[in-house]
């Protein structure tokens, strides 16, 4: 699965996710990536989110929207909200990660696996790339 979230010069957020699914899947199984609110969500008032991992747990926890709701209703930072939703996935036995970018340009990249291919770029063009924990 791949994902991207962005904040443009007008202050507008966007999120996108694309996936090849799971190896050996049957019966037309669909994961969280194409489900708005589960694997993908964006709202200018809060955050843009793209998820990756064991899709069933992201669907059942409505992870991307939950992260946004924690910011909107509980006033959490994007980092706190990110940790919270991944902890919920983890508690149910799921794994994976997500990327989140809030309306003010703050980020969170939580995951509970050995690694996650991930990268960031700042307004002044500084690129950082990480793979492992």
């Amino acid at each position, binding site marked *: *699965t*791949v*994902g*991207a*979230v*962005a*904040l*443009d010069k*007008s202050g*507008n*957020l*966007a*999120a*996108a*996710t*694309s*996936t*090849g*699914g*799971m*190896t*050996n*899947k*049957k*019966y*037309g199984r*669909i994961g969280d990536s*194409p489900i*708005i609110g589960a694997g*993908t*969500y*964006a709202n200018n008032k809060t955050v*843009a989110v793209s998820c*990756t*991992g*064991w899709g069933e747990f992201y669907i059942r926890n409505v992870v991307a929207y939950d992260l946004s709701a924690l910011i909107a209703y509980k006033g959490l930072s994007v980092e706190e909200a990110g940790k919270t939703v991944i902890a919920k996935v983890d508690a149910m036995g799921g794994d994976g*990660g997500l*990327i*989140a*970018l809030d*309306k003010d*340009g703050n*980020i969170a*990249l939580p995951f509970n*696996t*050995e*690694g*996650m*291919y*991930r*990268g*960031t*770029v*700042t*307004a002044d*063009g500084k*690129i950082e*790339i990480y*793979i*492992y924990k």
Partner: protein
Amino acid sequence: GKYVMVIHGGAGTILKKNMTPEKEAAYRAALKEALTTGYETLQAGKTSIDAVEATIRVLEDCPLFNAGKGAVFTHDGRNEMDAAIMNGKTLEAGAVAGVSTIRNPISAARAVMEKSEHVMMTGRGAEQFAKDAGLEIVDPKYFWTQERWDGLQQALKEDSLKSKLDHSYQQPGKLGIENRDNKFG
């Protein structure tokens, strides 16, 4: 500094001991290319929607990642891809699921968002819509890669062995598939 873009290329069992320097360099280069594409799109004054679509297209065209060209195989030996996009300004959203002939599913998701009154389309209907929207349609063979094919053969072999050795594996009412980390692709 203020961040303007974040990307991911999937999560899972990614251990340094299993990674060759060449492969790690290839992943880093691909992620950098995707970020650079998105950043340049934003710097050109285009929208965040333009930026995420352009970025995802780079990752979909790269066989290293489980999307587009690097998609994993289903049990039946097919590539079935999904994609979604959402505009934070308008809360418009678009998605496609179970598509096998659209070169860049993320562009199909955007077409659903912008050129239809719907949010999600699936399978052949989504492929027909993408074709009508002028997107690039490819032979499903385009998505075939040796590494992903070998991954399916290994998974099939493991499932076959497990069903023979573990009599509790085929439980009544459990027709799904076991999700193991190595199946994320």
